[in-house]
């Protein structure tokens, strides 16, 4: 048991260190800092311009902070979920080290989760920059003294764990696919964007599509984060207004556990079949 804990810890710690080295060393520190600012602000700017054109600049409407915050926190989905699964492609195709990681006495799922830490850190920087820009320049009124911080941090933590475990599930599927697998993380994140209430409430979707959104933990997670930061935004849309924050937290926790179990089981299954099919070190020579 102790030996397992040691193996898990060193797998996670070193993977996080490696991920950070890769994430932060691809260019010089100044360019990295500029990129860290420009990327999230550009993404938010596109959304703000579109919103402004469609609503004739109705920034006072509760719709705006709903969309803005949903979009800001959705950056975690791309960062954490695809960060974990992308490590498989990166190590297998680019660095050609995945087989050496597999031969080493480490836990591969924990290693992959560790690789997602750096993306969580850079993702957090993007989220903070986007929210601060919204508060300072776009009248996203977040009263720091009225924020429900315990609810915010608890929801954030559960949500990041949920995203990491969904990333593990994707990583498993990635192990079994050799070609064009790089697009999968983006495709899944893009598809979930529609069904998570990130930029519009689920009521906007056709009735037959809504159950997908209700089954996604992301929906409850984004709702909780909005409620914790600006309670009134959640009240502006009826979709989940019938649920208390405690109920939403319970649903999020239950769905996170469910998706975590699915992530572990799917990864194990895929890992077994990747060995069967000789996919651990398969490269496409792109």
């Amino acid at each position, binding site marked *: 048991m102790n030996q397992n804990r040691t193996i898990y810890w*060193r797998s996670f710690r070193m993977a996080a260190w490696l991920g950070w*080295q890769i994430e932060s060393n691809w260019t010089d520190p100044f360019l990295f800092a500029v990129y860290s600012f420009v990327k999230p602000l550009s993404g938010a700017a596109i959304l703000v311009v579109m919103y402004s054109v469609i609503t004739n600049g109705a920034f006072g409407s509760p719709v705006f902070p709903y969309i803005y915050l949903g979009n800001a926190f959705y950056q975690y989905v791309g960062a954490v979920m695809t960060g974990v699964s992308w490590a498989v492609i990166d190590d297998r195709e680019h660095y050609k080290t995945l*087989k*050496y990681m597999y*031969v*080493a006495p480490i836990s591969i799922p924990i290693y992959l989760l560790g690789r997602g830490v750096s993306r969580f850190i850079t993702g957090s920087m993007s989220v903070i920059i986007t929210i601060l820009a919204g508060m300072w320049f776009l009248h996203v009124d977040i009263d720091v003294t009225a924020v429900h911080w315990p609810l915010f941090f608890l929801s954030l933590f559960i949500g990041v764990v949920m995203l990491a475990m969904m990333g593990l599930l994707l990583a498993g599927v990635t192990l079994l696919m050799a070609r064009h697998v790089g697009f999968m993380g983006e495709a899944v994140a893009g598809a979930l964007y529609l069904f998570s209430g990130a930029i519009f409430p689920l009521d906007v979707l056709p009735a037959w599509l809504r159950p997908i959104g209700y089954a996604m933990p992301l929906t409850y997670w984004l709702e909780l984060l909005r409620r914790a930061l600006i309670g009134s935004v959640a009240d502006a849309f009826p979709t989940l207004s019938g649920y208390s924050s405690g109920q939403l937290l319970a649903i999020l926790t239950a769905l996170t556990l469910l998706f975590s179990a699915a992530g572990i089981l799917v990864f194990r299954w895929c890992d077994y079949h990747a060995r069967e099919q*000789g996919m*651990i070190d398969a490269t496409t020579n792109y």
Partner: protein
Amino acid sequence: MFLEIGNGRYPSLSTLPIHAIIPNMTTLPAIQTENLGRIYRIRGSKKEAARELVALRDVNLTVQPGELFGLLGPNGAGKTTLIKILTTLLSPSNGRALIAGLDVTQQPGQVRQLINMVSGGETSGYGLLTVRENLWMFAQFYGIPSAEANRRIRELLEIVGLSERINTKSSDLSTGLRQKMNIVRGFLTDPDILFLDEPTLGLDVGASRDVRQFIRRWMDEQPTRTLLLTTHYMVEADELCDRVAIINQGRVLACDTPANLKRNLQRDAIFRLEVSPPDEATVAALATLSGMRHFVRRDEEGTAVLEMILHEEAALAQVINTLTQSDIRILNLQKREPTLEDVFVDLVGHSMAEAEHENNPAV
């Protein structure tokens, strides 16, 4: 203590601590395979039906602790497939493989505590990290304390002549130097059983020689260390290995010490003739001579080399007669001792290069 390698003097590795060896490790075979087989299912395109490629067939091998064991065969013979199975990267289709008594498919976690692997001819590694960082990181994955890891890194880099590049980003290293870094990665963790898959592939002659000397020295330092090496270089197998298994088309054809493998051929007469290029009819006539046991023709610049294993020396007269009748000039005639290449020719019927072409027709 210092040892002489190549032109250099290097510190001894004998002070390196060795991993705890599992109980009974010295009494159990280090590596054992029982009827091990592997079939790949290959599909050219979505419309094509999958075809089966047999990479390994009923391989039975036993490697004892302390042995430096060689797998010798052409590209596509199944050597890498066998290493992948033994290092838990690939599941066998049938049979089983044991590392120190542990089943590689049932107990992969425990197997990985005992092994490490290096594949030659590739430039793996994190290019953004320095040589030291790459190696240190892998040492951490194996649970080696940081100070000890740094000490080993410095020693090993000194031995392979890479110490001056310790703080160079690995993306700035040449292919050969990167390969040396990978070789260090394999030895750094001081595994009980080390797998080297074509370790000198792509290295220049001097670097290959240094690596071979280092391998031999590493084995000599600690009698319980076991090393399985695959190669298609005869000299490497002959010079390094305590025992060699000759493998082709997934089958182990022979397994013994290099000396014993060659001894079987010592009663035969082995000749190398360099001649003016012969026509096909002459080649066919030579191949069917009654005294000819095996015959390999290799074209070189403006000449042809005929490697022959004859049943007896007297059969050489038939060869020379056939050549002179066809107006083929004999430029050089040499009788020589058998090599592992001759053993391969004797077992397979043609040279390693021809077998390689047969195994990989597209090459």
